[in-house]
């Protein structure tokens, strides 16, 4: 009996002991690569944030890449502009150098110690806006909301992708320093449109279908007039503070749309052991990140 007990004890120990050990990492390439984050629109300077990736075996933190050579070429291979290092990995073009719609652009980034990367994208044609209407109303819960409807003409034949966000702008005083600080922040908006992607949806203050920005594509309204309706949720508070806002409609490239959609999916799944893994979209060859364009239309709105 004693021998059987010993045998069972040893077996149980062996059975329930996990074994871990270090193994060789047989990876093709884990050297750090250049990361390009550049979202360009027709109304702003060229801007790119350049940093390095961190290989899975590295223990260093994320760092910017300074003194990189960044060039923008048009579809004919002609140099359009170069970007200048502003510090902390941020590079901008000189004043007057802004992207134009329908032009194909290629960014090339070279930095010492890294494999050069490049990416190509274009700003889509500007969208014809038919109208934008805002009206203040009270919803069924007695909350004051600002309902906005943007009516636009979707260009036919091409696939078109749209982003909509509402920013609040204002200033606040730093009481310690006495400085006036400007701020621009996205507002929570509620939308029930069936064509809106729900990947970045969340619940807020009793509102289902809340977003910080809307994403939709013209799959179901290609070439047609389309009316997109959404509501600014904290309108009552904004009115009290006498703030100003900006409604922005971005006609984005497919790369822009795919990146944001996959990025949101990744954030939602991150840390959830029951979720399937997500690959975040990138169009940067030999590197990571996103280089993508969009046409911006915006309206000022007073709250």
């Amino acid at each position, binding site marked *: 009996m004693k021998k059987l007990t010993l045998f069972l004890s040893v077996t149980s120990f062996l*059975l329930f002991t996990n074994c871990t*050990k270090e193994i060789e990492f047989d990876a093709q390439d884990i050297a750090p690569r250049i990361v390009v984050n*550049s979202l360009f629109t027709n109304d702003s300077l060229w801007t790119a944030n350049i940093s390095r990736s*961190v290989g899975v*075996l590295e223990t260093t933190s994320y760092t910017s890449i300074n003194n990189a050579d960044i060039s923008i070429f048009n579809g004919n291979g002609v140099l359009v502009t170069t970007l200048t290092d502003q510090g902390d990995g941020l590079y901008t073009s000189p004043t007057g150098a802004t992207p134009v719609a329908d032009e194909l652009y290629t960014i090339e980034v070279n930095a010492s110690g890294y494999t050069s990367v490049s990416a190509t994208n274009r700003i889509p044609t500007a969208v014809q806006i038919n109208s934008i209407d805002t009206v203040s109303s009270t919803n069924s819960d007695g909350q004051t909301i600002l309902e906005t409807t943007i009516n636009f003409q979707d260009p036919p034949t091409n696939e078109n992708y749209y982003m909509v966000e509402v920013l609040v702008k204002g200033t606040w005083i730093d009481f310690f320093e006495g400085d006036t600080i400007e701020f621009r922040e996205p507002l929570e908006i509620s939308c029930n449109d069936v064509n809106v992607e729900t990947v970045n949806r969340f619940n807020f203050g009793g509102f289902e279908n809340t977003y910080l920005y809307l994403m939709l594509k013209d799959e179901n309204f290609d070439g047609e007039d389309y009316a997109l309706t959404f509501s600014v949720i904290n309108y009552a508070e904004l009115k009290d503070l006498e703030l100003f806002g900006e409604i922005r409609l971005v006609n984005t490239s497919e790369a822009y749309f795919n990146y944001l959609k996959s*990025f949101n999916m990744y954030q939602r799944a991150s840390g959830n052991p029951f979720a*399937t893994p997500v690959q975040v979209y990138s169009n940067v060859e030999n590197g990571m990140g*996103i280089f993508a364009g969009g046409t911006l239309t915006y309206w000022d709105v007073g709250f």
Partner: protein
Amino acid sequence: MKKFTLFAILILVFQLSFAQKFTISGTVKEAKTGEPIIGAKVFDLKSKKGTISNEYGFYSLTLPQDSAYIRVSYIGYTAMEYQLDGKKDIALPIELLTIQELEEVTVTAEKNIEERTQMSSFDVSIEKIKALPVFLGEKDIIKTIQLFPGVQSGSEGSSGIYVRGGGQDQNLMLLDGVPIYNATHLFGFFSIFNADAINKVTMIKGGFPARYGGRLSSVLDIRMKEGNMKEFHGEGSVGLISSKLSLEGPIVKDKTSFIVSGRRTYIDVLARPFINMRNRNQSGGKGDVGSNETQTGGYYFWDLNAKINHKFSETSRLYLSGYFGRDRFYNDGTNEYTTDEDTSITQQNNSNGLRWGNAIAALRWNKIITPKLFMNLTGTFSQYEFTVGGENQSTTTYQNAPSTSQNILFNYNSGIQDWTVKADFDYRPNPNHTIKFGLGDTYHTFVPGVNQIALSNNTSSGIDTTFGSSRQYGHEHWAYFEDDWEISERLKLNIGLHFSGFKANQEWYPSIQPRFAARYMLNENSSLKMSYSSMTQFLHLLTNPTIGLPTDLWVPVTDRVAPEYSNQFALGYAQTLTKGFQFSVEGYYKDMRNLIAYKEGVSFFGSSQDWQDKITVGNGNSYGLEVLVEKKVGKTSGWIGYTLSWSNRQFDSLNFGDPYPYIYDRRHDIGLAITHKFNDRVDIGVVWVFGSGYATTLAQQTYLGVSGLSVGANTPYEPVEHIEARNDYRMPSYHRLDLGINLHKKKKNWESTWSFGLYNAYSRQNAFYLFFEEGNNGARTLNQLSLFPVLPSVSYSFKF
């Protein structure tokens, strides 16, 4: 009407094409037990014509001459011979005696591998299953099948099978003709099949005969024993993990018999003393106030096979069989605590757990309608269900206020339930044709993931809500016709048509699936074979690749989700060598369409989304080469198999639309299984497996990604794990050696066997999971988690 006329003409042609003189028919059974012998060879030495018995032991042989010399044989049994006069049809029930020793003979007692039209298949003997060393001493049919070429095992210790690049849901597992939906216990470490209750195991990987349908990649046809018609017997075993007992015998001798076989684990029983000890230590003894907590938990599984069969006559038989099994993992606890001021006492009861299981029942009637026509009518029920949940009840008693109570309940359920009726016929008009035809219908009910949350207390009505996917229903129906046709001595064909359809709400999905197999004898010992199969599958299994719980969901085709289809071609060569060795080599190519997978980022658990919104559809293909050398007779027997294969998937919305390796794409796979019988008292078994690493997804870089619609000085960034491509990394190779020895003792009415085994004899640390970790020196390394080092096992089995 036209089709019926054509069918009748065909039957007439078959009848007239052969100037039959007489037909012998009956059943082939084991003399000692009355168990049917499936695949016994019934051969006329005069005309050189023969046939084999079907899955119920039925045979029929129509001969042209006026007399015959019949030889009936099957491996492991003494052949019987009969001299017959052919003046009229003869009903000839045959009983074969087992032989004590398997001789090193060249007289083959069953169809040689090169003779069979069926390619891409193999049978596994129960004796071999019991003789081979296995994981923790639990003899397992699935673990043995995993040793054959073309069958991948999945992760360490798993009882899943992945056949020729197909998914786990693409295997039609039949227990006495009834489909099983989850054939595993203990999170996949053991299968539900109790070897003591099984008569025959056949695996088909390609060249599917028309009588099979509904799955793309394989058919695992398992036939239960029917119970000893002559004498009462029993067998059982006591092992480290479980014990089992089988009893069988006649209720009315030679008329009615039964078999009951049960198994239960006792991990929970073994753990209970340790849990009780912990509870005593934690409670702090009697009379203490403060916190008083007890916990109990454990895991167990049980299963039960039962069968009754009644013989009305030599031509009519009724069977009632069932399988019931359950796994349960539970963790219960109580807790009682007081506040610091001792103004209230709270008592809590917690109950959490997972449970899953199958329940199967079948009622079957066999009838030999004519000496050439056999019928089987079956009604079956099959159910699989899975539940995970918990309940928390708490009651707080206050000194100066009314008491309060609260109850929180959470459950997640999924499952599938089938009701089936079918009719199968076996028609043997002459020795050149073995015709099978039949039809059937299954009514499916699917519960593809339902969440229930209930909150209640004694002060308000609370919440009771159910969300998730709603129940779905469907009718799956089929009909088939196949003919195993011996055109000449060299050339034999198996041609057939399988028609099936699924009615789902508004959509009806019909499918016509041609089947073809051919065998051409190059000489008396070798043959070339080829086959083509078109298969359709109306059920999908949603599998989450990131977690290993039995939470896989069976879902049907719907108005939005179409069936899966496959086409498989195979070409092979088979030969019987000297001294009983058999050799076969096969190449295959399979394409699969409309496969489903979870979209990126979806959570299969606790979500209110309907499952149809969580999936994406794509395709796959697989191809490879399989080599098998097998020896079935002699003191030393076994096999070695090698597989070289590729398996890929392509989904437009996964991996950016690029093809990627299937998770179980294993380039090289070797399986070696050998037993050697020294004498009646001692035999040993050796198993060695090797597999190159499976594919896995590893994020090899991280970076900061822009989170928003613009890039500027204050733009927020978030860390992103960069995955270059799905399944672009390979796990380390897997290999393992298992050794076993069986010591037998036989007395007059009692046989006993002590089995000692060593799983993973050289303690290879095979990777189960890979992860990155920062070590003590601050450096990050890739690490693997292994599950099982060397594991000894012992079991005691007995027969009486």
